[in-house]
């Protein structure tokens, strides 16, 4: 049985619903020998800011049970170097390129996006308002619903391409933020960025990260991410990229069932670079063996009584 794997977002068609998450695939050219990016729905680039950023001092990572904490601090090459050095390679790929933007002011978000708009080879933007590891911008935007709305409102007129807002789970109700960005014209939301977390070295009585706290990712966060996607899907009519701890096709299908229209694979790329492509193939295989001719039909098809969930008290 041939299964339709593609889907549309705004005017852009994506060949399947599996993407690689920002910050876990570089700019695509560092890892293309270990995995074929042309088999993915899309690549979301490492966050870009106007100027290059050095990032935080070491230690930047600490492993935790079934997960990891990171405090990279948005180390990135800056938008100008990206355009000059990375975009030419990305243009040679058949897959879709979503550029992730992180900034420390509303104006910086606008400047980066406006500059990228003048160049070919970009199919959409993901706006990171949710990095837990920088003092300026990051969470101070993403945990403030008015700021999140303002950023979306300011960016929307600058592009006709899909505009995706990447939300933080470090708030009480993600659905409030999803509703705000939908009203401000966003085409989709990405859920979730990392959760603020911490680990301590008892021998030295010091935090295991230089910035004390960091962002938790990996299989450990998958149950939280699923509940967040479910919450947003049940309360706001907006396409969702489900992210958090996906390592297998079954994990990805869980996200589709609870309401994600597509998924992004993150931390798993570090452990098993080929996993994302196998996940894309696995989803198609699941659909086929269940007699489903379009992966889209899985989206939100969870057989669940929302009223049985405590979530319904605020949905």
């Amino acid at each position, binding site marked *: 049985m041939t299964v339709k794997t593609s889907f549309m977002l705004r005017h852009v068609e994506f060949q399947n619903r599996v993407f690689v998450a920002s910050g876990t695939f570089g700019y695509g050219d560092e890892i293309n020998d*270990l995995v074929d990016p042309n088999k993915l729905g899309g690549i979301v680039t490492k966050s870009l800011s106007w100027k290059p950023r050095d990032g935080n001092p070491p230690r930047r990572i600490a492993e935790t049970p079934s997960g990891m904490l990171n405090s990279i601090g948005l180390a990135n090459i800056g938008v100008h170097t990206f355009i000059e050095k990375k975009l030419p390679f990305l243009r040679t790929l058949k897959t879709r390129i979503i550029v992730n933007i992180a900034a420390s002011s509303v104006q910086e978000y606008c400047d980066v996006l406006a500059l990228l708009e003048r160049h070919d080879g970009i199919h959409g933007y993901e706006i990171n308002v949710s990095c837990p590891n920088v003092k300026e911008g990051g969470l101070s935007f993403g945990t403030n619903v008015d700021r999140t709305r303002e950023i979306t409102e300011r960016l929307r007129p600058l592009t006709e391409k899909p505009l995706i807002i990447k939300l933080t789970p470090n708030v009480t109700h993600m659905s409030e933020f999803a509703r705000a960005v939908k009203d401000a014209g966003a085409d989709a939301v990405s859920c979730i960025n990392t959760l603020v977390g911490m680990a301590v070295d008892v021998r030295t009585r010091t935090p295991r990260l230089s910035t004390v706290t960091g962002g938790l990712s990996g299989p450990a966060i998958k149950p939280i991410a699923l509940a967040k996607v479910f919450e947003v899907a049940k309360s706001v009519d907006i396409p969702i990229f489900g992210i958090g701890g996906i390592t297998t096709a079954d994990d990805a299908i869980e996200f589709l069932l609870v309401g994600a229209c597509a998924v992004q694979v993150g931390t798993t790329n570090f452990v098993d670079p080929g996993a994302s492509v196998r996940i894309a193939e696995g989803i198609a295989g699941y659909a086929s063996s269940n007699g489903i001719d379009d992966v889209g039909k899985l989206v939100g098809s969870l057989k669940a009584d929302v009223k049985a969930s405590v979530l319904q008290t605020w949905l």
Partner: protein
Amino acid sequence: MKRFQTMSVVISLEEIAEGIYVLTLECPEIAKLTEPGQFVNVRMHDAHSEPLLRRPFSVSFVEGDRLELLFNVIGTGTRFLSTRRPGDAVDLLGPLGVPFHIDDTFETALLLAGGVGVAPFPMLRAALERAGKKVITLLGARSGVQIADRRLNNAYVATDDGSRGFHGSVVDLFHATVARNAILRPKIFACGPNRMLSVVAAAARTIGMDCELSLEGEMACGIGICQGCPVERSREGRKYALVCTDGPTFNSRDVVI
């Protein structure tokens, strides 16, 4: 540089010194391409995600299609390695990182190892000898039973407890060696805990010797995509280099440790 994610097969596991193991793996793709100082990132789980991240290990020696890893058991990952049996599959990503630079104009290589920092030296020493360099090998450990001198004949040994060889640290032994012998056009290659490496780097600067370090540190991906392994650079430009792709070998003048 070409790299692979591939399944290797365990040939043998041998305890070569107290608590120190050599795991021999058959892995033609990686064995053929590895140069001294490079490492592999080893997956430590199969079905379950615990421990999640791969662990980096220097390739200690290569012979035909086989490569050797040398390690001591300090946590979950290395315990996993120490329980592999012949015929088991081990998922490797490699070869990774920048090899030691052995083509410079030095004549004598001084190899300084602290503890399991000895890991990359068997392969390095063989390559240096093939290149016609004179090699002096200095190994340090807490105690004599922990000296891993397999494939490193005639190494000079220093132990913290004085139970074998020189009583003191490998850096003390280095100073004693340099004071006693006229060493022709030397270059230091050092590997061990970062606090030892920073002492070696300072000593090299003081006496004006060229010095290459193999750094350790936490890694997530080992392939330059997570930005998780920075080391401060001492030169103009970018503030940090990445241990996994710009290193793990660095000239001691280029980094601040």
